[in-house]
């Protein structure tokens, strides 16, 4: 059973790698033959971005994993602190992430 689920995991990963490489390989083939700011790419970018923000919102509001152990309010505050520091203090990614993380851990410890 364990070895079956392990090989199942590797199979899943192989599919995920192939599904990602598809875009990379296609990019090499199409390189400089196609305008990367054309409407098809713009649509693909929109789909990607909508998925990502949807995934974040779902991970924060409706977590499926261990984050259910932390209260909703703390998760929302952690994100708000991260974004707040990002927009208010010069758009520094690492500083902002660190601030959000510290807020999250500190509130969890309280």
């Amino acid at each position, binding site marked *: 059973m364990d070895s079956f689920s392990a090989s199942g995991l590797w199979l899943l990963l192989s599919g995920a790698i192939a599904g*990602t490489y*598809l875009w990379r390989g296609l*990019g090499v083939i199409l390189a400089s033959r196609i305008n990367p700011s054309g409407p098809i790419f713009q649509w693909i*970018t929109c789909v990607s971005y909508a998925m990502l923000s949807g995934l974040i919102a779902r991970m924060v509001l409706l977590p499926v994993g261990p*984050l259910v152990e932390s209260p909703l309010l703390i998760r929302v505050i952690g994100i708000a602190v991260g974004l707040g520091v990002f927009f208010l203090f010069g758009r520094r990614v690492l500083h902002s992430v660190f601030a959000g993380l510290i807020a999250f851990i500190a509130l969890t410890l309280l």
Partner: protein
Amino acid sequence: MSCQGNTMLETKSQVNRRAVTDALGFPALMLVASMTGFGSLARESGLTLGVALGSTAGIWGLPGQVALAELHAAGVPALLVILAVSLANARFLPMAVSFIPLMRGGARSYGWMFLFVQLMSINSWAAGLRNFPEIAPDMRLRYYILFALICMAAGLIGTVLGFVGVVAMPRPIALGLIFLNPLFFAVLLAGSTGRPAILALLVGIPLGPIFHMVSPNWGLLATGVIGGTIAFWISRRVESARGDG
């Protein structure tokens, strides 16, 4: 002979040094930190260390990796997981299209690009676009490969740190490591520019949780396709209304 000015990097050692110093700053630090988050999520989602490292090296894009771990943990059917991972990383297509032609000068045979493109991430892409003007065209591939390999090493180290750390750390800190995933995304995406991308981000926020409640299996894909299409349509309408489309 170069006529591009005396700041152009032309020798192997100059380019090597530049690639290492560029990569070992912010990019390596950011990859260790973000992949620490992924490693912890991977473990808590039931992935093995081997699969976690395989995701980092093989998918090599945080959004797809997190989608893989999250959807696997949620018990979503494999085919839908693969589809979602693929779409979450679709940005690699336009990235490669704009990036690969800049390095053509250095490739012995163009076929090698199909291998080297696997190393491409947002870090190496941005570093290349920023620094290639100062690097001789036949040396750009060298810069990119060295830079990207250092990034990947940092990502793999982070993955191990998170995988080990999430069970070794006290629970609040372990939860913090997992919380790094949505937090990193939120901050990285907050820096996005361009009307279509920003619109898509805003549309996705309500649709993600709503579609997840309707169908945990299809929710993420539906969010991307429906939300993305709405954002695309609105931004086109705005562009044509302003006459700048």
